[in-house]
Protein backbone atom coordinates (compact mmCIF):
# COMPACT_ATOMS: atom_id res chain seq x y z
CA UNK A 1 0.00 0.00 0.00
CA UNK A 2 1.47 3.28 -1.01
CA UNK A 3 -0.69 5.31 1.27
CA UNK A 4 0.72 4.81 4.75
CA UNK A 5 4.33 3.86 4.82
CA UNK A 6 5.31 2.98 8.32
CA UNK A 7 2.37 0.72 9.05
CA UNK A 8 3.02 -2.99 9.40
CA UNK A 9 3.91 -5.22 6.49
CA UNK A 10 7.53 -4.68 5.64
CA UNK A 11 8.19 -8.33 6.22
CA UNK A 12 6.72 -9.41 2.88
CA UNK A 13 9.44 -7.83 0.87
CA UNK A 14 12.15 -10.39 1.07
CA UNK A 15 12.31 -13.82 -0.38
CA UNK A 16 11.94 -16.95 1.67
CA UNK A 17 13.71 -19.36 -0.54
CA UNK A 18 15.08 -22.80 -0.02
CA UNK A 19 16.18 -23.89 3.36
CA UNK A 20 19.81 -23.15 4.16
CA UNK A 21 21.85 -25.13 6.60
CA UNK A 22 22.56 -22.77 9.50
CA UNK A 23 26.20 -22.32 10.39
CA UNK A 24 27.19 -21.22 13.82
CA UNK A 25 27.99 -17.49 14.23
CA UNK A 26 28.38 -16.99 10.50
CA UNK A 27 25.63 -14.42 10.42
CA UNK A 28 27.23 -12.49 13.24
CA UNK A 29 30.57 -12.51 11.47
CA UNK A 30 29.10 -11.52 8.11
CA UNK A 31 27.20 -8.75 9.81
CA UNK A 32 30.23 -7.42 11.66
CA UNK A 33 31.94 -6.98 8.33
CA UNK A 34 29.21 -4.59 7.17
CA UNK A 35 29.92 -1.03 8.26
CA UNK A 36 26.36 0.16 7.72
CA UNK A 37 25.05 -2.61 9.96
CA UNK A 38 27.57 -1.75 12.64
CA UNK A 39 26.55 1.92 12.66
CA UNK A 40 22.90 0.88 12.89
CA UNK A 41 23.61 -1.52 15.75
CA UNK A 42 25.59 1.14 17.63
CA UNK A 43 22.77 3.64 17.36
CA UNK A 44 20.21 1.06 18.45
CA UNK A 45 22.34 0.18 21.47
CA UNK A 46 22.53 3.85 22.41
CA UNK A 47 18.77 4.21 21.96
CA UNK A 48 17.97 1.16 24.08
CA UNK A 49 20.40 2.12 26.86
CA UNK A 50 19.00 5.67 26.95
CA UNK A 51 15.43 4.42 26.99
CA UNK A 52 15.89 1.71 29.58
CA UNK A 53 17.85 3.95 31.96
CA UNK A 54 15.71 7.03 31.25
CA UNK A 55 14.91 7.78 34.93
CA UNK A 56 18.62 7.59 35.79
CA UNK A 57 19.87 9.67 32.86
CA UNK A 58 17.10 12.25 32.73
CA UNK A 59 18.31 15.58 34.14
CA UNK A 60 14.80 16.86 34.97
CA UNK A 61 11.44 15.43 35.91
CA UNK A 62 9.22 14.32 33.00
CA UNK A 63 6.62 17.02 33.61
CA UNK A 64 8.66 19.78 35.24
CA UNK A 65 7.34 22.96 33.67
CA UNK A 66 8.87 26.41 33.61
CA UNK A 67 6.31 28.75 32.16
CA UNK A 68 8.24 32.02 32.11
CA UNK A 69 8.95 33.51 28.70
CA UNK A 70 12.70 33.04 28.87
CA UNK A 71 12.38 29.41 29.97
CA UNK A 72 9.91 28.36 27.25
CA UNK A 73 11.03 27.40 23.75
CA UNK A 74 14.70 27.69 24.61
CA UNK A 75 17.28 26.74 22.06
CA UNK A 76 19.68 24.01 23.12
CA UNK A 77 21.94 25.20 25.95
CA UNK A 78 24.26 23.47 28.37
CA UNK A 79 21.40 23.23 30.87
CA UNK A 80 18.87 21.89 28.37
CA UNK A 81 20.89 20.09 25.72
CA UNK A 82 17.79 19.56 23.52
CA UNK A 83 16.16 22.87 24.50
CA UNK A 84 12.69 23.25 25.99
CA UNK A 85 9.18 23.01 24.57
CA UNK A 86 6.18 25.32 24.73
CA UNK A 87 5.58 24.50 28.38
CA UNK A 88 9.24 24.91 29.29
CA UNK A 89 9.72 21.18 29.75
CA UNK A 90 13.18 19.77 29.09
CA UNK A 91 13.01 18.09 25.69
CA UNK A 92 15.92 15.75 26.35
CA UNK A 93 14.02 14.28 29.29
CA UNK A 94 10.89 13.85 27.21
CA UNK A 95 12.86 12.20 24.39
CA UNK A 96 14.38 9.74 26.88
CA UNK A 97 10.99 8.76 28.26
CA UNK A 98 9.53 8.55 24.75
CA UNK A 99 12.29 6.14 23.81
CA UNK A 100 11.26 4.10 26.83
CA UNK A 101 7.67 3.97 25.58
CA UNK A 102 8.83 2.89 22.12
CA UNK A 103 11.05 0.17 23.59
CA UNK A 104 8.39 -1.25 25.89
CA UNK A 105 5.80 -1.18 23.10
CA UNK A 106 8.01 -2.93 20.55
CA UNK A 107 8.95 -5.59 23.10
CA UNK A 108 5.32 -6.23 24.04
CA UNK A 109 4.26 -6.52 20.39
CA UNK A 110 7.27 -8.59 19.40
CA UNK A 111 6.62 -11.06 22.21
CA UNK A 112 2.86 -11.30 21.72
CA UNK A 113 2.43 -10.74 17.99
CA UNK A 114 5.78 -11.86 16.62
CA UNK A 115 6.94 -14.60 18.93
CA UNK A 116 3.72 -16.05 20.36
CA UNK A 117 1.30 -15.62 17.45
CA UNK A 118 3.70 -15.33 14.51
CA UNK A 119 6.12 -18.11 15.37
CA UNK A 120 3.49 -20.26 17.08
CA UNK A 121 0.87 -20.13 14.35
CA UNK A 122 3.52 -20.33 11.64
CA UNK A 123 4.94 -23.54 13.15
CA UNK A 124 1.47 -24.94 13.64
CA UNK A 125 0.36 -24.13 10.09
CA UNK A 126 3.53 -25.39 8.49
CA UNK A 127 4.02 -28.51 10.59
CA UNK A 128 0.44 -29.69 11.00
CA UNK A 129 -0.81 -28.63 7.60
CA UNK A 130 -4.32 -29.73 6.63
CA UNK A 131 -7.31 -27.74 7.78
CA UNK A 132 -5.38 -25.92 10.52
CA UNK A 133 -3.04 -24.56 7.87
CA UNK A 134 -5.99 -23.51 5.71
CA UNK A 135 -7.76 -21.75 8.58
CA UNK A 136 -4.64 -19.85 9.69
CA UNK A 137 -3.89 -18.85 6.11
CA UNK A 138 -7.40 -17.63 5.47
CA UNK A 139 -7.44 -15.59 8.68
CA UNK A 140 -4.14 -14.07 7.61
CA UNK A 141 -5.52 -13.36 4.15
CA UNK A 142 -8.62 -11.70 5.57
CA UNK A 143 -6.65 -9.58 8.05
CA UNK A 144 -4.16 -8.46 5.46
CA UNK A 145 -7.05 -7.55 3.18
CA UNK A 146 -8.42 -5.02 5.62
CA UNK A 147 -7.28 -1.39 5.68
CA UNK A 148 -4.84 -1.66 8.60
CA UNK A 149 -4.40 1.87 9.87
CA UNK A 150 -8.10 2.62 9.61
CA UNK A 151 -8.99 -0.46 11.63
CA UNK A 152 -6.36 0.29 14.24
CA UNK A 153 -7.83 3.76 14.60
CA UNK A 154 -11.33 2.28 14.79
CA UNK A 155 -10.32 -0.17 17.53
CA UNK A 156 -8.56 2.45 19.64
CA UNK A 157 -11.40 4.91 19.15
CA UNK A 158 -13.98 2.30 20.15
CA UNK A 159 -12.19 1.55 23.42
CA UNK A 160 -11.50 5.19 24.25
CA UNK A 161 -14.85 5.66 25.94
CA UNK A 162 -13.95 2.96 28.46
CA UNK A 163 -10.48 4.25 29.43
CA UNK A 164 -11.71 6.08 32.49
CA UNK A 165 -13.81 3.19 33.79
CA UNK A 166 -10.97 0.71 33.45
CA UNK A 167 -8.23 2.94 34.79
CA UNK A 168 -10.29 3.97 37.85
CA UNK A 169 -10.97 0.32 38.54
CA UNK A 170 -7.25 -0.45 38.32
CA UNK A 171 -6.40 2.51 40.51
CA UNK A 172 -8.81 1.35 43.20
CA UNK A 173 -8.07 -2.36 43.11
CA UNK A 174 -4.36 -2.65 42.39
CA UNK A 175 -1.10 -1.08 43.44
CA UNK A 176 -0.76 0.78 40.14
CA UNK A 177 -2.13 4.13 41.27
CA UNK A 178 -1.63 7.02 38.86
CA UNK A 179 0.10 4.93 36.23
CA UNK A 180 -3.00 2.90 35.52
CA UNK A 181 -4.39 5.31 32.92
CA UNK A 182 -1.22 5.10 30.85
CA UNK A 183 -1.26 1.34 31.30
CA UNK A 184 -4.83 1.08 30.00
CA UNK A 185 -4.00 3.26 26.99
CA UNK A 186 -0.97 1.12 26.41
CA UNK A 187 -3.10 -1.99 26.51
CA UNK A 188 -5.55 -0.55 24.01
CA UNK A 189 -2.96 0.34 21.39
CA UNK A 190 -1.32 -3.04 21.85
CA UNK A 191 -4.69 -4.69 21.32
CA UNK A 192 -5.14 -2.66 18.15
CA UNK A 193 -1.69 -3.53 16.80
CA UNK A 194 -1.33 -7.23 17.64
CA UNK A 195 -3.96 -8.52 15.17
CA UNK A 196 -1.87 -7.14 12.32
CA UNK A 197 1.59 -7.73 13.76
CA UNK A 198 1.82 -11.51 13.39
CA UNK A 199 1.01 -11.85 9.69
CA UNK A 200 4.50 -11.26 8.32
CA UNK A 201 6.37 -13.55 10.69
CA UNK A 202 3.71 -16.26 10.42
CA UNK A 203 4.12 -16.31 6.63
CA UNK A 204 7.91 -16.50 6.87
CA UNK A 205 7.90 -19.24 9.52
CA UNK A 206 5.32 -21.30 7.65
CA UNK A 207 7.22 -21.29 4.38
CA UNK A 208 10.47 -22.12 6.20
CA UNK A 209 8.83 -25.03 8.01
CA UNK A 210 7.46 -26.35 4.72
CA UNK A 211 10.99 -26.25 3.27
CA UNK A 212 12.53 -27.93 6.33
CA UNK A 213 9.95 -30.70 6.38
CA UNK A 214 11.31 -31.91 3.06
CA UNK A 215 14.81 -32.34 4.51
CA UNK A 216 16.10 -35.85 4.97
CA UNK A 217 17.04 -35.44 8.63
CA UNK A 218 13.47 -34.48 9.49
CA UNK A 219 12.14 -37.62 7.85
CA UNK A 220 14.82 -39.60 9.68
CA UNK A 221 13.89 -38.14 13.05
CA UNK A 222 10.21 -38.76 12.35
CA UNK A 223 10.84 -42.36 11.38
CA UNK A 224 12.71 -42.88 14.65
CA UNK A 225 9.56 -41.87 16.47
CA UNK A 226 10.56 -38.46 17.83
CA UNK A 227 7.72 -36.77 19.69
CA UNK A 228 6.10 -33.65 18.22
CA UNK A 229 7.62 -31.21 20.76
CA UNK A 230 11.03 -32.74 20.19
CA UNK A 231 10.59 -32.52 16.42
CA UNK A 232 9.58 -28.89 16.68
CA UNK A 233 12.13 -27.62 19.15
CA UNK A 234 15.10 -29.79 18.29
CA UNK A 235 14.79 -30.13 14.52
CA UNK A 236 12.49 -27.53 13.02
CA UNK A 237 12.91 -24.45 15.20
CA UNK A 238 16.68 -24.01 14.82
CA UNK A 239 16.27 -23.84 11.06
CA UNK A 240 13.35 -21.42 11.24
CA UNK A 241 14.87 -18.97 13.72
CA UNK A 242 17.40 -17.12 11.52
CA UNK A 243 14.90 -15.96 8.90
CA UNK A 244 12.32 -15.35 11.61
CA UNK A 245 14.72 -12.96 13.33
CA UNK A 246 15.48 -11.27 10.01
CA UNK A 247 11.75 -10.80 9.55
CA UNK A 248 11.37 -9.37 13.04
CA UNK A 249 14.10 -6.81 12.52
CA UNK A 250 12.63 -5.71 9.20
CA UNK A 251 9.22 -5.33 10.81
CA UNK A 252 10.41 -3.52 13.93
CA UNK A 253 10.22 -0.03 12.43
CA UNK A 254 6.64 -0.51 11.32
CA UNK A 255 5.58 -1.85 14.73
CA UNK A 256 7.16 1.12 16.51
CA UNK A 257 5.73 3.37 13.79
CA UNK A 258 2.20 2.16 14.53
CA UNK A 259 2.41 3.38 18.12
CA UNK A 260 3.95 6.70 17.11
CA UNK A 261 1.28 7.27 14.46
CA UNK A 262 -1.59 6.42 16.82
CA UNK A 263 -0.16 8.63 19.56
CA UNK A 264 0.37 11.40 17.01
CA UNK A 265 -3.34 11.26 16.20
CA UNK A 266 -4.08 11.51 19.92
CA UNK A 267 -5.35 7.93 20.11
CA UNK A 268 -2.42 6.24 21.81
CA UNK A 269 -0.19 7.31 24.65
CA UNK A 270 -0.87 10.94 25.57
CA UNK A 271 0.14 13.54 28.10
CA UNK A 272 1.36 13.46 30.79
CA UNK A 273 3.10 10.25 29.66
CA UNK A 274 5.68 10.67 26.91
CA UNK A 275 5.65 9.11 23.46
CA UNK A 276 7.33 10.22 20.27
CA UNK A 277 3.85 10.46 18.79
CA UNK A 278 2.60 13.15 21.14
CA UNK A 279 6.04 14.75 21.27
CA UNK A 280 6.01 15.19 17.48
CA UNK A 281 2.35 16.20 17.52
CA UNK A 282 3.27 18.91 19.98
CA UNK A 283 6.13 20.36 17.97
CA UNK A 284 4.87 19.71 14.44
CA UNK A 285 3.67 22.51 12.20
CA UNK A 286 5.09 24.56 9.34
CA UNK A 287 5.01 27.85 11.21
CA UNK A 288 6.49 26.44 14.39
CA UNK A 289 9.21 24.74 12.37
CA UNK A 290 10.02 28.03 10.65
CA UNK A 291 10.41 29.83 13.98
CA UNK A 292 11.90 27.05 16.12
CA UNK A 293 13.34 24.41 13.75
CA UNK A 294 15.23 22.58 16.52
CA UNK A 295 11.95 21.52 18.17
CA UNK A 296 10.98 19.17 15.35
CA UNK A 297 14.56 18.07 14.73
CA UNK A 298 15.23 16.95 18.29
CA UNK A 299 11.67 15.68 18.78
CA UNK A 300 11.45 13.54 15.66
CA UNK A 301 15.14 12.93 14.94
CA UNK A 302 15.82 10.20 17.50
CA UNK A 303 12.84 8.07 16.47
CA UNK A 304 13.51 8.58 12.76
CA UNK A 305 17.05 7.31 13.33
CA UNK A 306 15.54 4.40 15.28
CA UNK A 307 13.32 3.44 12.30
CA UNK A 308 16.21 3.99 9.91
CA UNK A 309 18.60 1.82 11.94
CA UNK A 310 16.18 -1.08 12.17
CA UNK A 311 15.51 -0.87 8.44
CA UNK A 312 19.24 -0.78 7.67
CA UNK A 313 19.86 -3.69 10.00
CA UNK A 314 17.01 -5.69 8.47
CA UNK A 315 18.31 -4.92 5.02
CA UNK A 316 21.85 -5.96 5.95
CA UNK A 317 20.56 -9.23 7.42
CA UNK A 318 18.51 -9.98 4.31
CA UNK A 319 21.61 -9.31 2.24
CA UNK A 320 23.77 -11.60 4.38
CA UNK A 321 21.26 -14.42 3.98
CA UNK A 322 20.75 -13.74 0.28
CA UNK A 323 24.46 -13.79 -0.40
CA UNK A 324 24.76 -17.10 1.35
CA UNK A 325 21.87 -18.57 -0.61
CA UNK A 326 23.32 -17.29 -3.86
CA UNK A 327 26.82 -18.39 -2.91
CA UNK A 328 27.25 -20.10 -6.30
CA UNK A 329 27.19 -16.78 -8.14
Amino acid at each position, binding site marked *: *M*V*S*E*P*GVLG*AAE*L*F*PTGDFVQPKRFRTARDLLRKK*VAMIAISYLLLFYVCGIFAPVIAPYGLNDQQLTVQDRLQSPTSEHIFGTDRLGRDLFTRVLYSARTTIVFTIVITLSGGLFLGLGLGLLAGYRGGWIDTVIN*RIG*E*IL*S*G*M*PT*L*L*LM*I*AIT*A*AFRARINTWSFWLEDHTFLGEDSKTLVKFGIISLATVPFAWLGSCRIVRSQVLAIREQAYVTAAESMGASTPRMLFRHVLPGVLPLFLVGLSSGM*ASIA*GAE*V*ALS*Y*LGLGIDEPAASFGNL*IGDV*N*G*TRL*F*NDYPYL*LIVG*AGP*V*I*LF*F*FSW*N*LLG*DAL*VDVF*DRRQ*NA*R*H
Partner: protein
Amino acid sequence: MSPGLTGYIVRRVLWAIPVLFLISIIVFFMMRLAPGDPVDSILGSRYQEDQARVLKEKYGYDKPVYIQYVKYMQNLAHGDLGVSTRHRDFTASEVIWPKVWISSQIGFIALLITFGLGIPVGIYAALARGTFIDPLTISFWLALEAIPVYVLSTLAAWLFAVKLGLVDLGYRGVWSPNMIVPIMVMSLPGVAGVARFMRASVISVIGEDYIRTARAKGLKEHTVIITHITRNALLPMVTVIGLSLPGIAGGSIFIETSFGIPGIARESLAAVLAPDYDVILALVLFGSALFVFGNVAIDIIYGFIDPRVRVGATRG
Protein backbone atom coordinates in the same frame (compact mmCIF):
# COMPACT_ATOMS: atom_id res chain seq x y z
CA MET B 1 -7.91 -18.98 -23.49
CA SER B 2 -7.14 -22.51 -22.50
CA PRO B 3 -9.74 -24.40 -20.45
CA GLY B 4 -7.23 -24.72 -17.60
CA LEU B 5 -6.83 -20.99 -17.30
CA THR B 6 -10.59 -20.34 -17.39
CA GLY B 7 -11.16 -22.85 -14.62
CA TYR B 8 -8.36 -21.31 -12.64
CA ILE B 9 -9.81 -17.80 -12.93
CA VAL B 10 -13.29 -19.00 -12.01
CA ARG B 11 -11.95 -20.77 -8.93
CA ARG B 12 -9.98 -17.73 -7.80
CA VAL B 13 -12.97 -15.40 -8.20
CA LEU B 14 -15.26 -17.86 -6.44
CA TRP B 15 -12.85 -18.03 -3.53
CA ALA B 16 -12.89 -14.24 -3.21
CA ILE B 17 -16.63 -14.22 -2.50
CA PRO B 18 -16.65 -16.08 0.86
CA VAL B 19 -13.63 -14.04 2.00
CA LEU B 20 -15.51 -10.82 1.31
CA PHE B 21 -18.63 -12.13 3.03
CA LEU B 22 -16.63 -13.01 6.12
CA ILE B 23 -15.03 -9.57 6.23
CA SER B 24 -18.43 -7.93 5.85
CA ILE B 25 -19.88 -10.02 8.69
CA ILE B 26 -17.01 -9.26 11.09
CA VAL B 27 -17.06 -5.53 10.41
CA PHE B 28 -20.85 -5.29 10.42
CA PHE B 29 -21.16 -6.90 13.82
CA MET B 30 -18.29 -4.83 15.21
CA MET B 31 -20.08 -1.67 14.12
CA ARG B 32 -23.57 -2.65 15.22
CA LEU B 33 -22.49 -3.79 18.66
CA ALA B 34 -21.39 -0.25 19.46
CA PRO B 35 -23.85 1.54 21.76
CA GLY B 36 -26.39 4.09 20.52
CA ASP B 37 -29.62 3.90 18.55
CA PRO B 38 -28.91 4.30 14.83
CA VAL B 39 -32.30 5.93 14.22
CA ASP B 40 -31.49 8.62 16.79
CA SER B 41 -28.09 9.25 15.32
CA ILE B 42 -29.46 9.57 11.78
CA LEU B 43 -32.52 11.69 12.50
CA GLY B 44 -31.41 13.57 15.59
CA SER B 45 -33.39 13.67 18.79
CA ARG B 46 -36.63 15.12 17.33
CA TYR B 47 -38.19 13.46 14.35
CA GLN B 48 -41.49 12.38 12.80
CA GLU B 49 -42.58 8.88 13.64
CA ASP B 50 -43.08 7.92 9.96
CA GLN B 51 -39.52 8.97 9.09
CA ALA B 52 -38.29 6.57 11.72
CA ARG B 53 -40.65 3.89 10.39
CA VAL B 54 -39.23 4.21 6.86
CA LEU B 55 -35.70 3.77 8.18
CA LYS B 56 -36.65 0.84 10.39
CA GLU B 57 -38.49 -0.76 7.48
CA LYS B 58 -35.54 -0.38 5.12
CA TYR B 59 -32.59 -1.11 7.40
CA GLY B 60 -34.30 -3.25 10.05
CA TYR B 61 -33.03 -1.15 12.97
CA ASP B 62 -35.70 -2.56 15.29
CA LYS B 63 -34.78 -6.16 14.43
CA PRO B 64 -31.93 -8.36 15.73
CA VAL B 65 -28.45 -7.74 14.34
CA TYR B 66 -28.41 -10.69 11.93
CA ILE B 67 -31.61 -9.52 10.26
CA GLN B 68 -30.07 -6.06 9.98
CA TYR B 69 -27.13 -7.71 8.28
CA VAL B 70 -29.36 -9.48 5.77
CA LYS B 71 -31.17 -6.20 5.08
CA TYR B 72 -27.84 -4.44 4.70
CA MET B 73 -26.67 -6.99 2.16
CA GLN B 74 -29.97 -6.73 0.27
CA ASN B 75 -29.59 -2.96 0.10
CA LEU B 76 -25.96 -3.35 -0.87
CA ALA B 77 -26.99 -5.52 -3.81
CA HIS B 78 -29.06 -2.55 -5.00
CA GLY B 79 -26.09 -0.23 -4.58
CA ASP B 80 -27.41 1.34 -1.37
CA LEU B 81 -24.66 1.67 1.21
CA GLY B 82 -26.84 3.18 3.93
CA VAL B 83 -27.09 6.65 5.41
CA SER B 84 -24.32 8.89 6.70
CA THR B 85 -24.91 10.03 10.27
CA ARG B 86 -22.18 12.65 10.12
CA HIS B 87 -23.53 14.37 7.01
CA ARG B 88 -27.20 14.12 7.89
CA ASP B 89 -28.73 14.71 4.46
CA PHE B 90 -26.42 12.48 2.46
CA THR B 91 -26.31 8.77 1.80
CA ALA B 92 -23.07 6.93 2.35
CA SER B 93 -22.55 6.62 -1.43
CA GLU B 94 -22.93 10.35 -1.94
CA VAL B 95 -20.29 10.96 0.71
CA ILE B 96 -17.84 8.31 -0.42
CA TRP B 97 -17.55 8.16 -4.20
CA PRO B 98 -16.57 11.79 -5.01
CA LYS B 99 -13.89 11.62 -2.32
CA VAL B 100 -12.62 8.26 -3.48
CA TRP B 101 -12.24 9.79 -6.95
CA ILE B 102 -10.11 12.67 -5.60
CA SER B 103 -7.89 10.34 -3.56
CA SER B 104 -7.53 7.85 -6.41
CA GLN B 105 -6.26 10.47 -8.84
CA ILE B 106 -3.64 11.69 -6.38
CA GLY B 107 -2.75 8.14 -5.37
CA PHE B 108 -2.37 7.06 -8.98
CA ILE B 109 0.05 9.87 -9.81
CA ALA B 110 2.00 9.12 -6.64
CA LEU B 111 2.14 5.42 -7.55
CA LEU B 112 3.47 6.22 -11.02
CA ILE B 113 6.24 8.32 -9.46
CA THR B 114 7.06 5.69 -6.83
CA PHE B 115 7.52 2.94 -9.40
CA GLY B 116 8.98 5.26 -12.02
CA LEU B 117 11.77 6.12 -9.61
CA GLY B 118 11.99 2.90 -7.64
CA ILE B 119 12.53 0.55 -10.59
CA PRO B 120 15.51 2.42 -12.13
CA VAL B 121 17.01 3.04 -8.67
CA GLY B 122 16.78 -0.68 -7.90
CA ILE B 123 18.37 -1.68 -11.22
CA TYR B 124 21.11 0.90 -10.70
CA ALA B 125 21.85 -0.32 -7.18
CA ALA B 126 21.90 -3.96 -8.25
CA LEU B 127 24.31 -3.29 -11.11
CA ALA B 128 26.54 -1.33 -8.73
CA ARG B 129 26.58 -4.21 -6.26
CA GLY B 130 29.87 -4.59 -4.44
CA THR B 131 30.74 -0.91 -4.72
CA PHE B 132 29.88 1.74 -2.15
CA ILE B 133 27.26 3.21 -4.53
CA ASP B 134 24.84 0.33 -3.91
CA PRO B 135 24.46 0.70 -0.12
CA LEU B 136 24.62 4.49 -0.43
CA THR B 137 21.72 4.64 -2.91
CA ILE B 138 19.54 2.23 -0.97
CA SER B 139 20.37 3.91 2.37
CA PHE B 140 19.40 7.30 1.01
CA TRP B 141 15.91 6.09 0.11
CA LEU B 142 15.63 4.08 3.32
CA ALA B 143 16.38 7.26 5.27
CA LEU B 144 13.56 9.01 3.44
CA GLU B 145 11.27 6.08 4.20
CA ALA B 146 12.12 6.30 7.91
CA ILE B 147 10.71 9.82 8.23
CA PRO B 148 7.06 9.61 9.29
CA VAL B 149 4.71 11.12 6.67
CA TYR B 150 3.43 13.75 9.07
CA VAL B 151 6.97 15.02 9.68
CA LEU B 152 7.86 14.85 6.00
CA SER B 153 4.72 16.85 5.16
CA THR B 154 5.79 19.62 7.51
CA LEU B 155 9.33 19.68 6.16
CA ALA B 156 8.22 19.66 2.52
CA ALA B 157 5.55 22.29 3.14
CA TRP B 158 8.09 24.50 4.90
CA LEU B 159 10.68 24.12 2.16
CA PHE B 160 8.41 24.68 -0.84
CA ALA B 161 5.86 27.09 0.56
CA VAL B 162 7.66 29.11 3.23
CA LYS B 163 11.31 29.03 2.22
CA LEU B 164 11.12 28.89 -1.57
CA GLY B 165 7.64 30.35 -1.93
CA LEU B 166 6.93 28.18 -4.99
CA VAL B 167 3.45 27.04 -3.97
CA ASP B 168 0.91 27.84 -1.34
CA LEU B 169 -0.71 25.19 0.78
CA GLY B 170 -4.36 25.67 -0.11
CA TYR B 171 -6.25 22.92 -1.92
CA ARG B 172 -7.25 24.09 -5.41
CA GLY B 173 -8.20 20.85 -7.10
CA VAL B 174 -6.21 17.78 -7.96
CA TRP B 175 -4.61 19.23 -11.07
CA SER B 176 -3.28 22.46 -9.56
CA PRO B 177 0.47 22.96 -9.06
CA ASN B 178 -0.15 23.08 -5.31
CA MET B 179 -0.56 19.30 -5.41
CA ILE B 180 3.13 18.79 -6.24
CA VAL B 181 4.16 18.89 -2.58
CA PRO B 182 1.62 16.38 -1.23
CA ILE B 183 2.22 14.06 -4.18
CA MET B 184 5.95 14.14 -3.52
CA VAL B 185 5.43 13.43 0.17
CA MET B 186 3.18 10.55 -0.77
CA SER B 187 5.38 8.99 -3.45
CA LEU B 188 9.00 9.39 -2.35
CA PRO B 189 8.94 7.30 0.88
CA GLY B 190 7.68 4.32 -1.13
CA VAL B 191 10.66 4.37 -3.49
CA ALA B 192 12.85 2.47 -0.99
CA GLY B 193 10.53 -0.53 -0.92
CA VAL B 194 10.22 -0.74 -4.70
CA ALA B 195 13.95 -0.19 -5.20
CA ARG B 196 14.86 -2.90 -2.69
CA PHE B 197 12.52 -5.39 -4.31
CA MET B 198 13.75 -4.53 -7.80
CA ARG B 199 17.35 -4.77 -6.64
CA ALA B 200 16.81 -8.25 -5.21
CA SER B 201 15.01 -9.30 -8.37
CA VAL B 202 17.76 -8.00 -10.67
CA ILE B 203 20.43 -9.68 -8.57
CA SER B 204 18.71 -13.04 -8.84
CA VAL B 205 18.30 -12.62 -12.62
CA ILE B 206 21.96 -11.59 -13.15
CA GLY B 207 23.04 -15.00 -11.89
CA GLU B 208 20.98 -16.88 -14.49
CA ASP B 209 22.64 -18.84 -17.28
CA TYR B 210 20.80 -16.98 -20.04
CA ILE B 211 22.47 -13.74 -18.96
CA ARG B 212 25.86 -15.36 -19.28
CA THR B 213 24.81 -16.69 -22.69
CA ALA B 214 23.66 -13.24 -23.78
CA ARG B 215 26.97 -11.75 -22.73
CA ALA B 216 28.89 -14.61 -24.35
CA LYS B 217 27.07 -13.94 -27.62
CA GLY B 218 28.79 -10.56 -27.54
CA LEU B 219 25.63 -8.48 -27.09
CA LYS B 220 26.15 -4.89 -26.07
CA GLU B 221 25.98 -4.40 -22.31
CA HIS B 222 22.97 -2.08 -22.43
CA THR B 223 21.09 -4.58 -24.62
CA VAL B 224 21.74 -7.24 -21.99
CA ILE B 225 20.62 -4.89 -19.21
CA ILE B 226 17.46 -3.70 -20.91
CA THR B 227 16.14 -6.71 -22.80
CA HIS B 228 17.53 -9.58 -20.75
CA ILE B 229 17.95 -8.42 -17.18
CA THR B 230 15.29 -5.74 -16.75
CA ARG B 231 12.51 -7.53 -18.61
CA ASN B 232 12.92 -10.68 -16.59
CA ALA B 233 13.46 -8.86 -13.31
CA LEU B 234 10.23 -6.93 -13.82
CA LEU B 235 8.17 -10.13 -13.72
CA PRO B 236 7.97 -10.38 -9.89
CA MET B 237 7.13 -6.67 -9.79
CA VAL B 238 3.64 -7.58 -10.99
CA THR B 239 2.85 -8.66 -7.43
CA VAL B 240 4.14 -5.47 -5.88
CA ILE B 241 2.30 -3.27 -8.37
CA GLY B 242 -0.86 -5.32 -7.98
CA LEU B 243 -0.72 -5.10 -4.19
CA SER B 244 -0.16 -1.35 -4.34
CA LEU B 245 -3.07 -0.64 -6.68
CA PRO B 246 -5.88 -1.11 -4.13
CA GLY B 247 -4.03 1.25 -1.78
CA ILE B 248 -4.25 4.24 -4.09
CA ALA B 249 -8.00 4.49 -3.66
CA GLY B 250 -7.61 4.69 0.10
CA GLY B 251 -5.61 7.89 0.19
CA SER B 252 -3.33 8.86 3.03
CA ILE B 253 -4.80 10.10 6.30
CA PHE B 254 -1.81 12.21 7.28
CA ILE B 255 -1.25 13.83 3.89
CA GLU B 256 -4.90 14.63 3.33
CA THR B 257 -5.20 16.25 6.75
CA SER B 258 -2.00 18.25 6.52
CA PHE B 259 -2.65 19.58 3.03
CA GLY B 260 -6.40 20.03 3.34
CA ILE B 261 -7.26 17.61 0.54
CA PRO B 262 -10.95 16.64 0.73
CA GLY B 263 -10.17 12.99 0.02
CA ILE B 264 -11.44 9.69 1.33
CA ALA B 265 -8.75 9.13 3.95
CA ARG B 266 -9.67 12.30 5.80
CA GLU B 267 -13.32 11.35 5.55
CA SER B 268 -12.58 7.88 6.90
CA LEU B 269 -10.71 9.29 9.91
CA ALA B 270 -13.62 11.62 10.64
CA ALA B 271 -16.07 8.76 10.14
CA VAL B 272 -14.23 6.51 12.57
CA LEU B 273 -14.02 9.21 15.21
CA ALA B 274 -17.63 10.43 14.78
CA PRO B 275 -18.58 7.45 14.52
CA ASP B 276 -20.41 7.29 11.20
CA TYR B 277 -21.26 3.59 11.06
CA ASP B 278 -22.50 3.07 7.51
CA VAL B 279 -19.66 5.12 6.04
CA ILE B 280 -17.04 3.13 8.00
CA LEU B 281 -18.65 -0.13 6.98
CA ALA B 282 -18.78 0.92 3.33
CA LEU B 283 -15.16 2.05 3.41
CA VAL B 284 -13.84 -1.12 5.01
CA LEU B 285 -15.84 -3.29 2.60
CA PHE B 286 -14.72 -1.24 -0.38
CA GLY B 287 -11.07 -1.38 0.72
CA SER B 288 -11.19 -5.12 1.37
CA ALA B 289 -12.97 -5.81 -1.91
CA LEU B 290 -10.31 -3.88 -3.80
CA PHE B 291 -7.59 -5.82 -2.00
CA VAL B 292 -9.15 -9.22 -2.58
CA PHE B 293 -9.85 -8.56 -6.25
CA GLY B 294 -6.38 -7.05 -6.61
CA ASN B 295 -4.98 -10.36 -5.38
CA VAL B 296 -7.16 -12.33 -7.75
CA ALA B 297 -6.07 -10.06 -10.60
CA ILE B 298 -2.40 -10.68 -9.76
CA ASP B 299 -2.94 -14.44 -9.85
CA ILE B 300 -4.76 -14.21 -13.16
CA ILE B 301 -2.07 -12.01 -14.68
CA TYR B 302 0.54 -14.53 -13.58
CA GLY B 303 -1.57 -17.22 -15.18
CA PHE B 304 -1.12 -15.38 -18.47
CA ILE B 305 2.55 -14.51 -18.04
CA ASP B 306 3.83 -17.68 -16.46
CA PRO B 307 2.45 -20.97 -17.82
CA ARG B 308 3.77 -22.93 -14.82
CA VAL B 309 1.13 -21.36 -12.56
CA ARG B 310 -1.57 -22.46 -15.00
CA VAL B 311 -0.36 -26.05 -15.18
CA GLY B 312 -0.17 -26.28 -11.40
CA ALA B 313 -3.71 -24.95 -11.22
CA THR B 314 -5.15 -27.56 -13.58
CA ARG B 315 -3.47 -30.36 -11.68
CA GLY B 316 -4.36 -29.06 -8.26
